[in-house]
């Protein structure tokens, strides 16, 4: 039996002028309410119950509502039904009512959504889910967790998996790198002789770097690409301040050979792809440039002597500042970095042009 009460608002109304019909509803806590029939019939679930089982006509035979519907929420839902089942309301009136109706705290809104779903009241479900979407939109993960009381129960490792960071969230990337750095620090302290291992890794990558460097063309004016990483590490660090941002923003998804366990955070990639750094040959030097930066990214954690630590801290500071600056400015900066040993201070540019980043909740 298909209930059409939702479609034709007034059609199911059985209002006898002398005697109004009431339906009895029972919520999970045992309390019983009586409601005008036409209002109750607006909910498909109640409608069906009445028609199929004949319940609801008296107090003893009240219709049991799903567990998700508590009395307070039921009241709200009935208000909604009462308004909308009245024929002759203009679309504008209904929209105005809806906008006011959903103004409530988040907890209530979630309960309302759940209850509306239980009663199969689709228009209300759509309305509330739209409102919830509006709440979620534009917030940072932390803000969303706070709003909805979500447990932050992903392990560090899981969060670090760039699986989650394909939307270029710079804060997460920053987090990734900080964690990676810390982990490296710990490893350093535990192992006494790890220099060889690291050097091996470094050497491996420098070969690859070399290859890609050769393959990709080395006409870049940046001058940041060096073959011997150890020697020019300091410079790379600084270049990486700015350039890594670029790479992170643009090439977080570069394909990479399956990284070793400890390096997940470094390169921000986990996808197993072709061994070549560039999955397909790119014509633009800009793309080449960015892919090479990815490489440099991985080396940052090898040096952990105090001088470098300072570098790291400063770098993170710079990083945070850069979250507010413009892309063109950063490009300028990279281009001008060239042979310099110190990062060029960026002019803080807090106008709305970097709205993308401010929307991530920078405070």
């Amino acid at each position, binding site marked *: 039996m298909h209930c059409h009460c939702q479609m034709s608002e007034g059609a199911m109304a059985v209002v006898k002028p002398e005697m109004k019909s009431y339906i009895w509803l029972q919520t999970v806590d045992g309390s019983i309410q009586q409601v005008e029939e036409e209002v109750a019939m607006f909910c498909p679930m109640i409608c069906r119950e009445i028609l199929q089982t004949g319940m609801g006509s008296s107090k003893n035979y009240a219709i049991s509502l799903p567990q998700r519907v508590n009395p307070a929420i039921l009241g709200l839902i009935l208000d909604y039904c009462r308004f909308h089942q009245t024929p002759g309301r203009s679309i504008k009136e209904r929209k105005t009512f809806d906008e006011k109706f959903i103004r409530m705290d*988040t907890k209530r809104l979630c309960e309302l959504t759940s209850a509306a*779903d239980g009663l199969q009241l689709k228009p209300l479900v759509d309305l509330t889910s739209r409102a919830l979407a509006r709440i979620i939109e534009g917030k940072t993960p932390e803000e969303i967790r706070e709003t909805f009381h979500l447990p932050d129960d992903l392990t560090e490792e899981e*969060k670090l998996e760039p699986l989650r960071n394909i939307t270029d969230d710079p804060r997460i990337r920053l987090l990734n790198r900080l964690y990676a750095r810390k982990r490296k620090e710990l490893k350093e302290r535990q192992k006494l002789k790890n220099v060889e291992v690291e050097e091996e890794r470094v050497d491996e990558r420098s070969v690859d770097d070399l290859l890609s460097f050769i393959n990709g063309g080395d006409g870049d004016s940046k001058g940041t690409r060096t073959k011997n990483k150890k020697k020019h590490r300091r410079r790379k660090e600084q270049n990486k301040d700015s350039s890594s941002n670029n790479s992170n923003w643009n090439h977080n998804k570069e394909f990479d050979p399956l990284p070793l366990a400890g390096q997940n955070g470094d390169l921000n990639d986990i996808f197993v792809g072709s061994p070549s750094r560039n999955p397909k040959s*790119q014509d633009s030097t800009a793309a080449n440039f960015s892919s090479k930066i990815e490489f440099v990214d991985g080396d940052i954690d090898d040096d952990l002597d105090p001088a470098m630590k300072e570098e790291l801290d400063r770098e993170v500071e710079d990083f945070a500042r850069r979250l507010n600056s413009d892309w063109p400015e950063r490009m300028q900066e990279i281009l001008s970095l060239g042979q310099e040993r110190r990062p060029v201070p960026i002019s803080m540019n807090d106008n709305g042009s970097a709205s993308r980043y401010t929307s991530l909740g920078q405070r």
Partner: protein
Amino acid sequence: MVVIRVHADIQMGDFSGADLISDLPQSIIESILTQLPIRDAVRTSILSSKWRYKWTTLTQLVFDEECVPRNERTLFQKSLVNFVTHVLFLHQGPIHKFQISASYLQSCPDIDQWILFLSRNDIKELGLEFGEGQWFRVPSCLYNCKKLTQLALVRCELDPPINFNGFISLKSLNLHQVLVPPDAIENIICSCPCLESLSLSYFDSLSLNIHAPNLKCLYLEGEFKDIWLEDTPLLVEMSVAMYMTDDIAEHFEQSSSCNFVKCLGGVPQLERLSGHIDFTKYLSIGNDLGRLPLTYNHLKTIELYEVSFEDMKEMLVVLCLITSSPNLVELHVSCSNSPAATDDPDLDFWEKKRSSDCLFNRLKVVEMTDMSGGLQEMEFMKFLLGNSPVLEIMSIKPFVYDMETQLNMLIEL
């Protein structure tokens, strides 16, 4: 360090309340996620362990320029393409709607793979909009999308194979600035039996012969050599903006068919007609209209723009249309800026018209724009005024530069 501090705050135990939202039914979660921009939806995977894969079963994926941080053009293209590829890679289950639209989007090999992936995942609604530059050549796997109901392409190249049998379920086809071999268009249209809405714009010199028994809405814009609605009995709404170059006009001089009949002869259910630029001129070409055995009982709204009133033939087209539409409610006409007439209007003709029994019993709104006060126009307006018993609004907007004639016009009326 802002970031570290925030992290410290989010240790467990900070919240007293239970999780509010994660246990809602998946259908609601998907409803919520669908209403978020794709970027935000994907980011929910980092919220908590329950949310890790909630977004991956979304059936609607809509991408645009907002998906990735706005950067320099070449990098933007790459990051957008990467983003989409990765979303598809992580996605689980069917994808019913896929839409991407970005002014910087250029053709690249990855996009072919997207189409292949979608063709294997029950795609129903597909929309691709590319930027200026090299147009995207749609790969052959598109033609394997059996469940396609809506297709919209902007700046692409279509080249269906010879044995292409059409899209059985396609209801809506929208091609804008699409390069297609001329006969292929007609084939596509007639091999999609369910087609209800067709929109073709920015085509060059297309000769169109439409067989679409279920077609309800037609929108055409561009340079058409010929429009023949051969089999469109259910057409309800029609809008044509047609450019006619001189050589096309010449081509017609030689033909003997009546364009009016070819175009509007088989649309008895028509409710709304809208013609722009050279459409009326196109209709006026052909055999003498005289008395046409056509009645448009459902036609309620007629909009004819850029009508050249001085051309008697076009005038006849307009008159013919409105007199064949007994239930006409709204009429919008605008005048093209042609130079003043050389001939005086045939006053006898107008006298006859005015005194004829032709009444517009339902005509309520008449809007005339860009009027230049020509005599023919005046006669037309007098005719309308005189034969429309229930007319409520008659709005006349004169052509801006001609102040003197404006006043004359108003005085006469």
